[in-house]
């Protein structure tokens, strides 16, 4: 990409930010205070955009081959990748949503955040080094290592794209709603802005730009959250007990916020949701892809060690932030509640405690910073999703399924860029189409599919010598269909989205994983066992070589030398 185009792009993006702000300033005359705040947030965000587009320009110069595009040439260090994974994983939903849940229910928020962390040890102990040793660009490289390429790749690409699509819709709708509140921008403007910026990062800077956007965002988010938590603890002389005592005193639910409430209903749901989160993380294509950006298994392990540490630390912070919001916001309904009325809820809705707390503790400037962080967070996550969707299409479908491995790097790169463009437009379109829809179930559905379709296939193909193409594809499809089907007939979609009468949902539990993931494993096992074809025999005979490579790293794809 030439110098001039990047400048133009930068100008364009900043222009869109400024124009959007101007629109907002004229749109709503009733809330003058909110407008003044928005300008600080927009200025902060513009700085973030300027820096990240600068990095994109630098990255564009280094993105010449398909390997650069997919994996930044494999030259990211373990520590950098750990931060990038954390940046990829800590979404706006987990920052604003979990602190909002703590604000509303106290203890239940902690249970929820623990669930989002427990997938990481599973990845560390079972997957990270094997992924790195066997794969090159996508998790399909690993799943299809010794199998028949066309069916395996087609399945893995489908699994990736379905997960990416649901995750993406949730992010885009969240982005539009959030930015509407934080910046006063129009919903459509916000969604288009996210789409355009995300396409710039991925299209021109590929994995290198995406990685650095995620790293910068992770640092901003961790720094902002640390500041908030420290300010809260400072108010109470660093005594959590004093903080809790004050929170119980002012909260409408009183002492109930110190114990588990309604989040965990029945043991089956509890275990099923736990499985979804624990094994779903190990099946998310945009997370798995990050393991190919490091030079070797040692760095892959380091990345996941750092990622777990940062994410765990972050969830402890969100718990403190949620309680900090209780003690700082509830006593001042005139400042933070709609019409100054506790019964009408927080200004901007249930996801706002962390944002309003930053206003309470750090004034306008810090409110602007945290709002900009929230926006940056969404960008970093959607960029990662788009990149993994694009690689599923270009590397798995185009290069392997259609070209049978005979595509050259240049044409593969071209296809991935076209796909990025299409996915970006598609994401904006879906974001707008789903504006008024209830998308709360979509992230959980993405996790459910990841743990029921992608994870069992990956796990069995790498660790079980008798696994065959037929078994893996059959089991994966069963997992995919069951996880989607059972979600549709569960309360969160059947009643909340499809508006069927309350109590009519056929599937009574909060997550399908306990059934769909188990079914996937059973089908993989049975079909593989029954598969006596010559192909199956060949695939089993290839297992020892695959195992040697996955365990020792001998023959693993190496960094392409930047």
């Amino acid at each position: 990409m030439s110098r001039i185009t990047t400048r133009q792009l930068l100008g364009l993006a900043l222009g869109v930010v400024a124009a959007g702000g101007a629109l907002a300033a004229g749109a709503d005359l009733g809330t003058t205070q909110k407008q003044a705040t928005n300008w600080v947030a927009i200025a902060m965000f513009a700085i973030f955009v300027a820096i990240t587009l600068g990095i994109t320009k630098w990255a564009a110069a280094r993105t010449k081959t398909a390997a650069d595009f997919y994996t930044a040439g494999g030259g990211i260090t373990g520590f950098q990748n750990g931060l990038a994974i954390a940046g990829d994983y800590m979404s706006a939903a987990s920052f604003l949503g979990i602190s909002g849940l703590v604000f509303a229910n106290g203890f239940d928020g902690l249970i929820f955040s623990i669930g989002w962390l427990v997938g990481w040890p599973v990845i560390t102990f079972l997957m990270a080094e094997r992924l790195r040793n066997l794969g090159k660009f996508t998790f399909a490289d690993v799943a299809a290592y010794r199998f028949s390429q066309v069916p395996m790749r087609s399945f893995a690409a489908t699994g990736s794209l379905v997960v990416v699509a649901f995750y993406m819709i949730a992010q885009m709708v969240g982005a539009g709603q959030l930015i509407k509140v934080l910046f006063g921008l129009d919903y459509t403007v916000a969604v288009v802005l996210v789409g355009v910026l995300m396409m710039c990062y991925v299209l021109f800077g590929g994995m290198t730009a995406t990685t650095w956007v995620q790293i910068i965002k992770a640092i901003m988010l961790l720094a902002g959250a640390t500041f908030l938590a420290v300010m809260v603890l400072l108010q109470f002389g660093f005594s959590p007990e004093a903080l809790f005592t004050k929170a119980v005193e002012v909260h409408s639910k009183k002492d109930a916020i110190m114990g588990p409430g309604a989040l965990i209903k029945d043991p089956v749901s509890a275990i099923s949701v736990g499985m979804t989160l624990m094994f779903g993380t190990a099946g998310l294509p945009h997370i798995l892809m990050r393991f190919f950006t490091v030079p070797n298994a040692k760095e892959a392990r380091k990345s996941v060690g750092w990622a777990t540490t940062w994410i765990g630390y972050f969830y402890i912070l969100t718990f403190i932030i949620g309680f900090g919001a209780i003690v700082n916001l509830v006593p001042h309904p005139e400042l933070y509640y709609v019409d100054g009325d506790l019964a009408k809820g927080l200004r901007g809705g249930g996801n706002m405690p962390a944002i309003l707390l930053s206003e309470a503790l750090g004034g306008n400037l810090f409110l602007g910073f945290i709002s900009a962080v929230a926006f940056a967070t969404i960008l970093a996550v959607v960029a990662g999703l788009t990149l993994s969707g694009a690689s599923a299409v270009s590397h798995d479908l185009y290069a392997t399924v259609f070209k049978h491995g005979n595509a050259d790097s240049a044409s593969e790169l071209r296809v991935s860029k076209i796909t990025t463009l299409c996915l970006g437009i598609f994401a904006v379109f879906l974001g707008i189409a789903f504006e008024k829809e209830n998308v709360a179930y979509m992230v959980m559905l993405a996790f459910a599919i990841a743990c029921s379709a992608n994870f069992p296939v990956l796990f069995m193909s790498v660790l079980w010598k008798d696994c065959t193409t037929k078994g893996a594809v059959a089991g994966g499809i069963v997992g995919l269909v069951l996880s989607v089907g059972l979600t549709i007939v569960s309360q969160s979609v059947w009643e909340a989205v499809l508006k069927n009468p309350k109590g009519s949902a056929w599937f009574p539990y909060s997550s399908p994983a306990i059934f769909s993931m188990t079914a996937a494993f059973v089908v993989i096992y049975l079909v593989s066992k029954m598969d006596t074809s010559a192909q199956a025999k060949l695939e089993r005979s290839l297992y020892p070589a695959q195992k040697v490579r996955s365990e020792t790293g001998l023959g693993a794809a190496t960094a392409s030398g930047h």
Partner: protein
Amino acid sequence: MNEDIVARIEANPKYHELVSKRNSFGILLSILMIINYYGYILLIAFNKQWLSTKLAAGWTMSIGVPLGIGVIIITIVLTNVYVRRANSEFDDLNAELIKEVTK
């Protein structure tokens, strides 16, 4: 990677030592992690009352809070314990193995 090297690695006792040591360590930590997480979740599902009990008389903090934070810290510790041992002891063993079979 050629058949010859695969055969030599499979014939080398260090390979089997590496695989069995690292895998059993991974499985052990996975079991600890499952106990850590599901223990907590099942406690919530079956004994909400106990988790709401105060840490001591006159306290506001319930038993559930430090336990929950503890689950997070244990998760971080287990992950890093694995990373540390795999990156030193197991990787050294791996390096020795590769040196032996490729010389």
